[in-house]
């Protein structure tokens, strides 16, 4: 079964990600539906424990603003690990729209991004999204990446006060 890094430990990941343009009946397993599908069908999708929504990098989290409190699972896609739009989207989801559920990074990310991703509000990471090198083996404890720095200058999701207010 695919794995998920969540709350600093590795757990089974039974969630499916339904592709953009998905139509038809939902699978029996928990799943993330694409934003457009959600917006068109949300009245039939009110099962927050097993239905989440995923956004692509060019999509507007604003479109979910009214639904955030009825959702427990959101995911943001990284088309490539060099595409940093998801960092901004995550902060908006957490800080502006006050989402408190699970926020998952999907798509393509690398382990050295885990620290920044978690600072921006992600708390779950699909391991198949993590590019771990040619052998796809895990070389270091993933939690070490999450704790790469003990000092941060800026305010962010996991630290509301910038360093200059904490010095």
């Amino acid at each position, binding site marked *: 079964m695919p794995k998920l890094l969540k709350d600093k430990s590795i757990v089974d990941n039974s969630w499916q990600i339904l592709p953009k343009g998905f139509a038809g009946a939902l699978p029996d397993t928990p799943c993330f539906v694409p934003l457009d599908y959600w917006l068109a069908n949300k009245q039939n999708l009110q099962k927050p424990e097993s239905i989440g929504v995923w956004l692509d990098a060019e999509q507007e989290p604003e479109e979910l603003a009214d639904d955030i409190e009825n959702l427990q699972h959101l995911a943001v896609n990284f088309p490539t690990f060099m595409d*940093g739009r998801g960092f901004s989207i995550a902060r908006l989801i957490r800080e502006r729209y006050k989402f408190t559920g699970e926020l998952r990074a999907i798509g393509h990310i690398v382990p050295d991004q885990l620290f920044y991703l978690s600072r921006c509000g992600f708390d779950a990471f699909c391991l198949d999204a993590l590019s771990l*090198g040619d052998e796809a083996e895990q070389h270091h404890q993933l939690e070490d990446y999450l704790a790469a720095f003990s000092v*941060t200058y800026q305010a962010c999701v996991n630290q509301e006060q910038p360093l200059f207010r904490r010095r």
Partner: protein
Amino acid sequence: MYIYDQHDKTLIGERVAQYRRQTDDYLAGKMRDEVFLPLRLQNGLYVQRLAPMLRINIPYGMVSATQLRALAHITRQYDKGYAHFTTRQNIQLNWPQLEEVPDILAELAAVEMQGIQSSGSCIRNVTSDEFAGINTDEIEDPRPWCEIIRQWSTLHPEFAFLPRKFKISVTGAESDRAAIQVHDIGLQVLRNANDEVGFKVLVGGGLGRSPAIGQAIKDFLPAKHLLTYLEAILRVYNRYGRRDNKYKARIKILVKAWTAEVFAAKVEQEWLQEIDSPSTLTDEVIAHAKDFFTSPAYESVDAEHAEATLQNLAAEQIAFGKWRERNVIAHKVAGYCAVHLSLKPTGVAPGDVTDSQLEAIANLADRYSFSEVRVTHHQNLVLGDVKLSDLPELWQAAKKLGFATPSIGTLVDMICCPGGDFCSLANAKSIPVAEAIQRRFDDLDYLYDLGDIKLNISGCMNACGHHHVGNIGILGVDKKGEEFYQIQLGGSALDDASLGKVLGPSFYAHEIPDVLERILSIYVDQRIEGESFLDTHRRIGTAPFKEYIYAKAA
């Protein structure tokens, strides 16, 4: 200067450890090239034509004698005994070994230096006015604000994977020496009618393939909102800047596509939602930042007596007078001055220094200028706080060391990128062209008669040599494997910023000195008493230059 506290030291130490682990993984084959690439870039390491190149930040151009000595040691121990000052006030090593870079970064960290975000698609080292805090036309010292921006941008988790590199420059003076109009964000510190400090904010300036002059999107941003406003600009850019084509990914392209008005409105809308968040600056943090940039312990100097002595010396020794006129700058404190150490002697690549020169500069700084040195974006150094009475002695010392070329601001005080000799992006060499120009124009009286002329040379359209904003700009181009040079006239990076216009078809390298001679002869013929090259060009346009040069060439 800013002094690291425990937080800064911990962060930089953790950064070195992180990069050492990344390098080890890469060298052990556990990390692919494309994954290692942005990680090494964000620590300053490029892979260049002949060897890796390491760019070390000199935040807003301020460097201490201690740091210069550490740099000297590093160039000796890990490189070939020299380094290169860049047009963004940084310093580069041309020959480090990839596997030794973690050790270099550790040595740098020991003297509070680093290469964090000195390249890559992220917020780069913030630059400023080399005369910050000492010039006579200053409204506010920009350096405390630069330091606040430096800390905010360092390892910013949201903006480490931007569409493209992002450069911020800050000036606090009436005349802009920080080229804020050709930066992604240019900030001008000013005071409003109520004597409150704030910023005029420009966005979308830049050189490179599509050069553009920055446009104002905020005429007065109260100082405490600096970081929330910058964050709004960066967020809009991060989300909407183009990522499909790296040549169209800079913020200038987005600003142009949307118009400055639309961009400003989008930023305003974003900013108003975060205004007054905890990132709003407090009086305490502003005061704390300013505490690092107070005046040094100036002595009281008998300025009149010193001035009389200098006048006498200038009368006896014309060379001293010329040096003083070109290389010495007025200071806000009576009895003091700022002194350029020229890094443009003929035959040396502009901005290059050896290990022993770095140490000699550190010694000069200790002896004459409170142990601090400033790097200029024209690739020279400045001793910022020199007593007038020390000038004769300093002149002698600088002459002996090769730093007294009395040509600051003249044609031969060129900005020049490393070019095809070093850089893997370059289409053409730039250093040999610079040297040929220096050799041709070796008559100081002629150079002084020409007055202030900015000549900027880039080896490719990425424009590290700022050719678009040279009064005369030279751009290396490649045509079917041969190197040619295009000439542009009329650029400026000062308050009256403008982009140069192409003169016409390009030339061979060996033709450039002759072509320059002809350009300058047109200027000398056509100038009205006291008129600069730039003003003459603005009055008469490119046509007279073009007609003369291409008629002769035909």
